[in-house]
């Protein structure tokens, strides 16, 4: 994968990506041009630096987490395919649409996968549980300086308490699904539609 450093997108590659991610041809080419414009090193891959150069991300409290989500475990580079694979999570859920993807597996933009994506942003150590500390970190990132650690701590406690059903004081993925499912609505709407309509 890493060998494909060419700046041109080959047709078969597009096809593959299409299959894998469900993006349309025009979306893929558009996102590819975006990809190349981000790719300052012009080596066909993006590194964290490239992402960090996006000014809006610097003011996004979760920016770095999201950037990290683009990178596979232990890797510092992400190629276009990986890039698209991550973005595919943000396609709208096409419940009603016939699943054109020949994949047998669940499409990346399914509810579950979206939630899993979000869950991974919390779950840093990848033990499939959100601990209090992990939650606290996310809270700290998302909350203004006006809240004391005390308050945050109690918020985190309460959040866990609220979601925790089996009493292990961790939020497991199943518990996460239950609490976060309702919040997924905008997810299904916002950039999903953006990508959906990126025919330009």
């Amino acid at each position, binding site marked *: 994968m890493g060998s494909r450093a060419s700046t041109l997108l080959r047709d078969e590659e597009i096809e593959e990506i299409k299959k894998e991610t469900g993006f349309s041809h025009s979306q893929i080419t558009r996102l590819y041009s975006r990809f190349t414009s981000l790719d300052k090193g012009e080596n066909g891959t993006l590194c964290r630096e490239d992402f960090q150069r996006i000014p809006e*991300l610097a003011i996004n409290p979760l920016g770095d987490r999201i950037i*990290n989500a683009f990178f596979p475990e232990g890797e510092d580079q992400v190629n276009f395919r990986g890039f698209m694979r991550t973005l595919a999570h943000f396609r709208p859920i096409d419940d009603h649409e016939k699943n054109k993807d020949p994949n047998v597996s669940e499409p990346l933009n399914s509810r579950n996968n979206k939630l899993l994506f979000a869950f991974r942003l919390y779950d840093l150590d990848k033990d499939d549980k959100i601990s209090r500390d992990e939650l606290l970190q996310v809270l700290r990132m998302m909350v203004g300086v006006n809240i004391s650690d005390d308050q945050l701590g109690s918020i985190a406690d*309460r959040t866990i308490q609220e979601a925790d059903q089996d009493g292990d004081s961790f939020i497991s993925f199943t518990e996460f699904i239950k609490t976060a499912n309702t919040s997924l609505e905008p997810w299904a709407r916002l950039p999903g539609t953006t990508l959906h309509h990126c025919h330009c």
Partner: protein
Amino acid sequence: MHSPVLFQILVFITSTFFAPWTAHFPGSDASVISEILEPVGIAVESLPPQSSAPPLHQPYGIDTGKIASPAARVPVNDIADPIVSSTSPAGNRHRGTEPVSFEIVQWNWEHAQGPFLVAVWITVASLAKILFHLSSKVTTVVPESCLLILLGLGLGGIVLAATNRTDYQLDPKMFFLFLLPPIVLDSGYFMPSRLFFDNIGTILMYAVVGTLWNSSATGLALWGIKQAGLMDKKVDAGLMDFLLFGSLISAVDPVAVLAVFEEVHVNETLFIIVFGESLLNDAVTVVLYKVFNTFVEMGSDKVRAVDYVKGVASFFVVSLGGTVVGLVFAFILALTTRFTKRARIIEPLFVFLLVYLSYLTAEIASLSSILAMTFCGMCCKKYVEANISHKSRTTVKYTMKTMASIAETIIFMFLGISAVDTSKWTWDSGLVLFTLVFVFVFRAVGVILQTWVLNRFRLCPLDWIDQVVMSYGGLRGAVAFALVILLDKSKVKAKDYFVATTITVVFFTVMFQGLTIKPLVKWLKVKRSNQHKPTLNEELHERAFDHILAAVEDIAGHHGYHHWRDKWEHFDKKYLSQLLMRKSAYRIKDEIWDVYQKLNIRDAMSFIDQGGHILSSAKLSLPSLPSRMSFSETSVTNLLWENGSGVCLDLQVIDTVRSGKDKEDTVMHHVLAGNLYKPRKRYQANYSRHFISADEQEWQDREVIQRNMRCRLESFRSTKHSVYQNKGKSRHKKSQKKHRSNDVNGDVPNGKPKRNISWQDTVPVVMTMDSEEEEEDNSGAEKEEDEGITFVARAADEVLLEGKQSSILDVYQSPFLLPPSPTCTEKELPWKGDQGDLPACVSSETTKIVPIDLQQAWNQSISSLESLPPPTTSEVQQLQHRTVPLVMLEERGAPAALARPPLDPCFQFPEHATAAGRSSEEDSTECIQQQELRPLMSSDKQPRPGPSAESAGARWPVQFNRAARVSLLQNVVTASPYKGSGQTDL
């Protein structure tokens, strides 16, 4: 005295209810007053000309036939005017007549009658409001507008029964000149402009296309019905008449929409779309109305193609012209308020006058006055709010709200009263019924069709529930009524039918739909605002998801609306704001900080009312003993009273906390809601007519940038120094030199007692604003004299700290203020974090820190810092165009903690220096801040001169204190993710 006096009073009491107060409006036609000059004290003037008939006065028996003759209509500016007295020869006389002898008391009823009646009218209307709200049950079920209409109906009925007079009407002139402007002004000024412009496309679509469709479809369909013979033959109306009627009946009415939707609390997007539409469709309505009115008057056969073209052209002229008028006046207003510094007292007046002038100017030029006023209010707000003083702002706000509320009350009451007047009605069931059906059906069809188109472009498509609410929320109101009254009966033969139909439609929509929309919304489970308090999880996830989405959008490089908004903001920042805002205001970024302050003050007030139990948020279910204990030590309320400052109040909490509720939950929700960073799109997403939303973007951006940069730096550093490898966290550091290599290699592998790394952790690598910028921000800031008191959230901790420290050091009793602005808050971050969280974790862990290590480490870090050039990271530079000027690494705060050990004679106490340097040109607030901080600093410094003199025992607690604080900084200030992850490794 005069015989009719007693009777007058009696009659007056009843009559004031019914007198068309508009006729007596002080600013109204002076000639009107002359008509009032009759003993009965009842205004006879009814503006629809045909109804002001003398016989109406008969019931009163007195002065029958002595109604002011046309001659009395001579403008009367002074009651003493001989003409008046001569034309009102009745028993009541006043100065004008030759006095027979000196009268001890003179009854000058006429003298003040007009204004008096107006005042009484308003009082009555307002009292009615109070009455309605006595029973909370009634008002939760029945909208106020309905109640007011019913009241009007009742009063009108009484008058009709008692006097047989039916001439009280909602007068179009008064309606458009006096009653409508306050409402439009209020809604324009407090319009959440961001939300509005976010949805401008949709709003425009509904306002223009929707209204066009509604009116033409309704008009044509009614005409078809007429042709089909389903209508009374007596309805003498052609195609043009029906189109005219369609144009006036189809416009959604802002007053009605506002009145109803405000009580329903649907989500903001839905609200802004319906409400925005009702405001912006004014232009369309005005044009259509005028065009068809002219066509009707011309006779439809004479209408040529050119006239249609003219009509279309007129639409653009009217709408764009109105907007331009509004913008021009907004500009003038903003510029004016820039120079009112020495005449603060008239600031609010300017706001009202100029906005009103924009309305009137547009009226004069027959442009869309509603558009003019809306845009004027909306556009001037930012600058005006920045320029005028805090007090003026409050004045403006409350006056606007009050006036709007009064106007609304009166409008609805008059609608009710007007409906009683059956003399102008001619009922035709066919017309009424079909109009009702068409109005409703075409609205629904229009909404569905347009939404279908719009959803292809909207980021956030409107689902069918939204569409139902939008269709159902298409309320017609007083505007339609006023317009139909304005019709010329000689030209529009079917006017009486139209009046009856309009009244019915208005009543049906306002009463029936207004009444049922709430249950409907409930039943459909429309996303409502503020109704459902999400669980903490939902709230957290929702926010997190929003951030994620925003980030992904950025990564995917979606530029559209945001791109242009950015451009505009850039332009605004560079030119407009500089031109229109005072320098001080421009520099301190007032909007944010003022709202912030306002909120704080309000919260503080209610906090006081509640006896301070809100602060329990700080001791919520967390076993942090220190905080609890110190809390109980300090009587927060007392402090608040005595100092007027320094109390931590969560911004949002207090409003909603009510006794009996689950306080903890509420508090937490509010803590979260108030402090979670908002995704870019949602800044200012809240709209309420009663509160001003804050533009928190800038401070938020700054905070986030600081954090992100810090994180990046730290991860960079950590990888560089190979202190530890965090798996997912290693970053690339191609731009090493750009990054400031600060030698805080501060990530703790695990939560174990930290080696001397732990202090490094605690060195608050805070990315603060470049000090120059800061200085600019604060220096030369001519602060309003009334901004002396500041409540800053999280001050509670400081209070707490104060208690603690004073107990340890016995140093200072004087209260201290907090950095008054977000900016300042950030600037003082280290301190804040330092003190603020002291109690939270004076844990056993932190006490293990070895002071010597701290000392050395500090020295290291300082020296390494000094060796570096003034840093700006590349990312930061990229960001400069977005409100974040220069970000640089500064190390402050922690020094306060670390400076003490005597081993370091050469160490410069950094923030002291900075602060001193800054204070030279500080404005008053800054001075206060300095003052307030002084105790703190002194407490820090005191041990310094001779710490050795102190006994070790005496020193230790303090140092523990420091250490604990310092370690806390990590949590608070740096928010490094690594620490946490390290702990999870445990």
